[in-house]
């Protein structure tokens, strides 16, 4: 059913028009990687602080308050460029397990980040000191770093595995 939907989408006038413009996919992917840079570098800075790695700098609540809004903005760009790539090459995306694994992990890590941001907003002083920081902070840091790494890996591996499934 997914395959027939992908085939239908690939034959719509919009998709065909985009397929004919050979610059669209590389350009969209380039913007996609720039947005991944904002999201992943921000996540790393927050998670390293939660894990207590690295030199001192901004507190957990300062980092989260500054960087998480940028992560949401970048995620909006990722969604838009992701849609462009999916509409242009629907079969490649929909038949590939790496694509669905990626989408699932994006939903999980987004919900986690939302809950984390809310927890920090509600009780900044406790989160800012290593001694009073909730234990979930370290779990969040490890899980979200691993999820983002896996999301990047799945994204790249769509390109290398899709032909195995057609």
């Amino acid at each position, binding site marked *: 059913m997914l395959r027939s939907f992908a085939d239908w989408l690939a034959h719509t006038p919009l998709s065909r028009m985009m397929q004919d413009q050979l610059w669209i996919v590389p350009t969209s992917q*380039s913007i996609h*990687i720039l947005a991944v840079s904002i*999201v992943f570098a921000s996540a790393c800075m927050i998670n390293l602080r939660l894990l207590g790695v*690295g030199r001192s700098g901004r507190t957990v609540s300062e980092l989260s308050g*500054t960087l998480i809004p940028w992560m949401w903005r970048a995620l909006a760009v990722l969604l838009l460029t992701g849609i462009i790539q999916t509409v242009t090459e629907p079969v490649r995306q929909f038949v590939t397990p790496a694509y669905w694994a990626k989408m699932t992990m994006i939903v999980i890590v987004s919900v986690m980040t939302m809950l984390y941001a809310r927890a920090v907003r509600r009780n900044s002083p406790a989160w800012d000191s290593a001694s009073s920081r909730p234990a979930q902070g370290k779990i969040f840091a490890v899980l979200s770093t691993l999820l983002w790494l896996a999301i*990047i890996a799945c994204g*790249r591996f769509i390109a290398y595995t899709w032909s195995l499934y057609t």
Partner: protein
Amino acid sequence: MSINELAAAIREWPISAAVRGDIPGTEWFFPIIETLHVMALTVVAGSIAMVDLRLLGLASRDSAVSRLTKEVLPWTWTAWCVAAVFGTLLFTSRADVYVHNLQFQLKFACMGLAAINMLVFHFGAYQQIARWDASEPPASAKVAGLISLLLWTGVVFFGRWTGFTA
């Protein structure tokens, strides 16, 4: 030895064949190395953008510039080294093709200019940072931030386009 002879020689190295996937058991080397390269480069580009956006007054305005650079730039350099190691491996796979690829050349032109821009900033506006650290950066620092942002965008763009054109 000319650049062509050198590139041809690199292509004869066993590591080149392994990254290319020409040796049995190495078929997945290129996608894996490329994924590691992407993971590292997103940290490079994202962390540099944090500093650039601060210089431009678009983000992290409540943190002093020196505080931000002390916190962020060690990770930038670490990630840059990781990206350079995996990038060099990718380069060896088809060195003779990459040296003649326009996008590849433009990528390194952008990175070279970004290095010059960084040095000009470091030995220029940064020397008087005590005067503007916590407030509005001077025009020369803003220009450095904008140029850096544009050049690293170029590095990411031309890097991704190399994959489509080489």
